[in-house]
């Protein structure tokens, strides 16, 4: 066999062996192995807070209505205020969103949440009813 043909046969065989030796992607079997990994989620840090005491009755209580600015929340609470006036006339109902426009918002930060909470606290609320969304 001429030298040129010998080389051709050699390279053809080498390529074939190489191809056969490669794992087929479709039929690839991964090795089962032992892994050690770090749990990436992190432990939770929450400072528990004590809820306000429950009320026995709404008679004569101060009820503060808080709107966060989401569409129609004020309209919902306006109707709740009407119903409270009708069904619980001894209660004092305060629409903080009418009283202090700066509270009409999603706070956006803990500091702003605390400020809004203080506005409500200063109204001496016995109970706060907030409307969320959307």
């Amino acid at each position, binding site marked *: 066999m001429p030298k040129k043909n010998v080389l051709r046969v050699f390279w053809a065989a080498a390529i074939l062996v190489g191809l056969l030796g490669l794992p087929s992607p479709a039929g690839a079997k991964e090795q089962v192995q032992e892994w050690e990994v770090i749990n990436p989620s992190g432990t939770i840090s929450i400072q528990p807070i004590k809820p306000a005491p429950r009320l026995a009755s709404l008679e004569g209580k101060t009820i503060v209505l808080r709107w966060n600015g989401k569409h*129609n929340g004020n309209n*919902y609470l306006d109707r709740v205020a009407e119903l409270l006036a009708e069904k619980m006339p001894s209660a004092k109902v305060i629409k903080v969103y009418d009283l202090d426009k700066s509270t009409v918002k999603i706070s956006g930060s803990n500091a702003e949440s605390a400020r809004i909470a203080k506005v409500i606290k200063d109204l001496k609320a016995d109970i706060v009813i907030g409307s*969320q969304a959307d």
Partner: protein
Amino acid sequence: MTVATTAFLSLARSTMESIGLADMAFVEVPHPMGMVSLADIRAKADQSFAEILQKAVQWKPSRTEIPGLGKPPYPAERIKFRGTYESLNKMFYEKRWSLGLPVIPPAPEAVAEMLKGTSRQPSEVVWVVPPRMGQLTVELVATLGVMAGCKPEHMPLLLAMIKAISHPHFDWRGSSTTTAPTTPVIVINGPILDELGIGYSTGALGGEQPVNIALGYFVNLVGDIVGGSMPPDPDKSTLGSREDLVAIVIGENEKQNPWKQSYAVDLGFKPTDNVVTAYSAYMGTNNTDHTSVKGTQLLNTLSLGAAAVACGITSCFTQYEKPYAIDNRVKFVFLFLAPEHADTIYKDFPNKRAVQEYVVKKAVAPYWSYAPEICTVPKEFGPYDENTMIPRFTKPEQVHIVVTGGPGKQSQVWPPFTTVFKPVSVLVEK
């Protein structure tokens, strides 16, 4: 007591828990409350009023303690797992430890190698990430960095990014639980760009930027895994965006900035400082202006984008120094100017201040295009009607200019999420 709709009750409950309440009184109203008629919303109040009265005086908590508290943040738990790489990734996804894409397994050896990139103690808690309130230690920064494909030399940058996005001005909680498609946008300036191979030229915001992608993937792993903000709860993204996978991380093309002064230097940093600037953004829009030859012409088309992007939530006459309010939303805008666009502008505006002033003047929209209730026109503006053009901004500082990208006539305009106060810039500390 909180009134929430069926679709958002779970978010309300998770918010309650994250502030430390084990339980509280909820009144559930059929979704939606927003964008329905006055008659419909009053009917919903009528239907739920009896429950309001009942829960006001008779409600009792179903539990008094939040489970799972009190575990130390460091060292993080080590997990043994037998299986294939594929099954390991499946386990991670099922435990909500990944976003569904494959991650690099955070083996203790790989994490130890990452920690060599910082002198900070691995036990240090750098952020308690809302809404889940997971404690992010330096060790976990390294862990999540490994998972995202970051390298030890990225550690100072990862820590700087965390410092920026955890700042109250960013409003991480709101950004990561909103129905809107928001993404962290992180702009990097300084010599670190070339030192780490951070993309700032052709395709800087695209896919084939391994360092930018790894950094952006890291940010979202932190938010979703440690912060726990995944859809459908408590991440309430209506549609979301693919940036929920990889946050926007971009370098400034300082070499091709015609003003010869980088964005960070505009803010008062030195040219040799490495600086990270971050804010939470609504999706941006592209400016494809191929025909403007004057700076004013190009700024006119860019101003249109600045006025219109994030439509529906933008206020008019926004005040930069005042916090977010119902009529002070989306208070600034970033212009990511391609170098060719920057050159065109520079010819007519040799200082950036004049660019900012021009955009403030030209970023206007007709009154009818503002959503109801969120555009309050000041009395001193004078008379107006539905077709009067009303400005979006009031101060030059509200327009932020970053030169980035490669050849071509494409720039981008990226607005902030509604409750963002200002962008946050921090030094990268080695």
